């Protein structure tokens, strides 16, 4: 690249272009005016103006989740940066690669309680993979290169670059490095050959195996390798909330999601297996419940993860393998294919028969003849009408769990939700990011009347950027997940979980220039969805489904209980 004198702002823009960035989500302000001016003068990427900085980060995050590329957000100093924090923390907890550029007051004003000054590096430190304060324009290009490299390699995560205003105005020669080497940062990607061999042997000798697949499979783009290995060995697969789509849900080997709201067959198989292959999953407390209860049963655990600190954190592991899921699974496949015998077919048959007994309890049943709309029914219809092929984003609550349970994801990167932080308000901005990345693809945002109001202002962004998202509001009139806990564990004292004074969502949608629908009868569910995805294909449609206010998410493992201690319907 030729060396030319550019301003810091121009350098930022050139670096983003050099990284192949096509979309930046952001909101302007004093400290980033020079960057916005440079954006005005370029045509390499599109800037999407949101209505709140939190939404910019969620949109960039979901953009990344749905494409595998690094998402980029740009916000101003002070309140711009603090508004972005929830988005950054959300991405951090789910290991999503992001580069978030924040404006900062001029270097000379730092520490002077200047107008719109906050210590962004300090505030974001605990919820980023890494962050930088750039004090010299000469460091800018290298820092951007490092940021993209750090965000996207190893265990991915958000990286914040804080740039003082004067640095965006200073000039220097521009050179964007092709690659960057850091002596302090060298993530492992290849697994240890000896450990892989031990693990493969263990898999071949398994009698009651389970593959427990997580978000790491999605992040590693390793769904295909996982599916091949599972099918080759004939092993049943369960997935965390974050791993859904990593193995095709309609497949008979799939046990459904495990954990707090997982299926009987998944949780029982997890508890009673003799060999557990954990792939890019981190034994979260929502997944295995009480670790003491989990460890009551003896089983061998193989754990593949790029991040050594995810291994043996909550559960002691027998064969740890630090490395990229894709690499390691490919090595497994080679070894197990070359082996002179596969796993004991009789044992596998007996194990699958046991699993079918658990499955036969049909833990996902619900009343199909109710006079009110059942939320599960809406999701099943959505699945049918979109052919299981839509991108589905979600907010946080009961609706999120029903979406995870009843929409049978067959492909990775189709299910976009906040698992680790559980951020209400994620769904709509996430849908914007996804729709931006996949124009023309069906994108549904499954939400609750509580959650949607946390970023409702983004309906304006959807109008401005022409995003034909389909909002599926499962309106139960309650902060339903809170109400469910109060019903089960607080003797039905419904403290502040009833959401009164809801707006007329149809009028609200219309006020923003969109299509609104109110659906209150089960027989109207399907026609409404068909119209939304048919006649109104090119419009944002806000569907307000009035659903059963008392419906609960089953099964449920109470917090602190074990996998086999589910509350069933």
């Amino acid at each position, binding site marked *: 690249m030729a060396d030319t004198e550019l301003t810091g702002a121009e350098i930022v823009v050139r670096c983003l272009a050099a990284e192949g960035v096509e979309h930046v989500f952001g909101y302007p302000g004093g400290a980033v005016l020079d960057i916005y001016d440079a954006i005005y003068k370029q045509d390499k990427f599109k800037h999407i103006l949101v209505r709140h900085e939190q939404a910019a980060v969620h949109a960039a995050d979901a953009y990344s989740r749905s494409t595998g590329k690094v998402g980029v957000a740009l916000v101003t100093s002070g309140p711009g940066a603090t508004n972005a924090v929830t988005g950054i923390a959300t991405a951090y907890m789910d290991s999503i690669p992001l580069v978030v550029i924040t404006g900062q007051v001029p270097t000379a004003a730092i520490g002077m309680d200047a107008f719109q000054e906050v210590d962004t590096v300090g505030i974001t430190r605990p919820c980023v993979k890494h962050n930088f*304060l750039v004090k010299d324009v000469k460091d800018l290009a290298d820092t951007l290169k490092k940021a993209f490299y750090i965000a996207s390699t190893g265990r991915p995560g958000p990286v914040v670059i804080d740039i003082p205003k004067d640095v965006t105005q200073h000039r220097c020669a521009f050179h964007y490095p092709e690659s960057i080497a850091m002596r*302090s940062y060298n993530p492992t990607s290849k697994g240890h050959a000896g450990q892989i061999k031990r693990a493969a042997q263990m898999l071949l000798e398994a009698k009651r195996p389970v593959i427990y697949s997580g978000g790491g499979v999605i992040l590693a783009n390793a769904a295909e390798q996982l599916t091949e290995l599972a099918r080759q060995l004939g092993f049943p697969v369960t997935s965390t909330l974050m791993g859904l789509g990593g193995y095709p849900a309609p497949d008979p080997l799939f046990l459904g999601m495990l954990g707090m709201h997982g299926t009987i067959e998944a949780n029982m198989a997890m508890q009673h297996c003799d060999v557990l292959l954990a792939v890019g999953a981190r034994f979260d407390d929502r997944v295995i419940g009480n670790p003491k209860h989990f460890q009551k049963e003896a089983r061998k655990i193989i754990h593949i993860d790029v991040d050594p600190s995810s291994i043996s954190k909550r559960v002691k592991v027998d064969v740890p393998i630090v490395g990229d899921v894709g690499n390691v699974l490919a090595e497994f496949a080679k070894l197990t294919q070359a082996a002179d015998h596969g796993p004991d077919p009789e044992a596998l048959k007996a194990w699958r028969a046991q699993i079918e007994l658990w499955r036969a309890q049909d833990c996902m049943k619900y009343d199909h003849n109710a006079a009110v709309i059942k939320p599960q029914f809406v999701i099943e219809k959505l699945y049918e009408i979109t052919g299981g092929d839509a991108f589905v984003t979600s907010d946080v609550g009961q609706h999120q769990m029903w979406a995870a349970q009843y929409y049978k994801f067959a492909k990775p990167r189709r299910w976009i939700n906040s698992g680790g932080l559980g951020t209400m308000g994620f769904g709509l901005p996430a849908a914007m990011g996804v729709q931006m990345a996949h124009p023309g693809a069906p994108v549904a945002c499954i939400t609750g009347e509580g959650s949607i109001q946390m970023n409702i202002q983004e309906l304006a962004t959807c109008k401005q950027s022409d995003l034909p998202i389909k909002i599926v509001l499962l309106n139960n009139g309650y902060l339903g997940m809170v109400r469910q806990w109060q019903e089960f564990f607080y003797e039905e004292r419904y403290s502040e979980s009833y959401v009164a004074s809801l707006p007329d969502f149809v009028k609200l949608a219309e006020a923003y220039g969109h299509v609104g629908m109110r659906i209150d009868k089960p027989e109207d569910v399907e026609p409404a969805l068909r119209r939304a995805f048919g006649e109104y294909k090119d419009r944002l449609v806000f569907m307000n489904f009035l659903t059963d206010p008392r419906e609960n998410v089953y099964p449920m493992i109470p917090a602190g209980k074990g996998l086999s201690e589910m509350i069933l319907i």
Partner: protein
Amino acid sequence: MRHVISLLMENEAGALSRVSGLFSSRGYNIESLTVAPTEDASLSRMTIVTRGSDEVIEQITKQLNKLVDIVKVQDLTDGCHIERELMLVKVKAVGEFREEMKRMADIFRGRIIDVADKTYTIELTGPGVKLDAFIAALEPSAILEAVRTGASGIGRGDRIMKI
């Protein structure tokens, strides 16, 4: 168990707060932490003394390794190592104390580095337990002020941490 963890990190602004922030946010305890640049000015060498079960210590080393600015982490307590700490104690040096304090400093091989009408300042280096013993040996009312650096550690013999 008590562990002494040694690390090399990029000598960047804010590097220390990444480490101390990690310990406080994850609830690990720090008994002492010392840090300074070394012969290579681009690196800082840190010694952290901490306590925890084997599982906690394993997480601490993994989490430290994960920090992007950290180049190397070593648990010195995994093998042979030496620890030294520096202490400065200001003591009363009037009346009988004037002689007594000099004698105590000699016994512990400390040095008196500041002499005033009514006080001595004694410098003492050694493993933490030796400094503890010195404090315990002094008449409490004689101690006016004490300051300790926390332990610095290094491996014995061929055990070298360098990049």
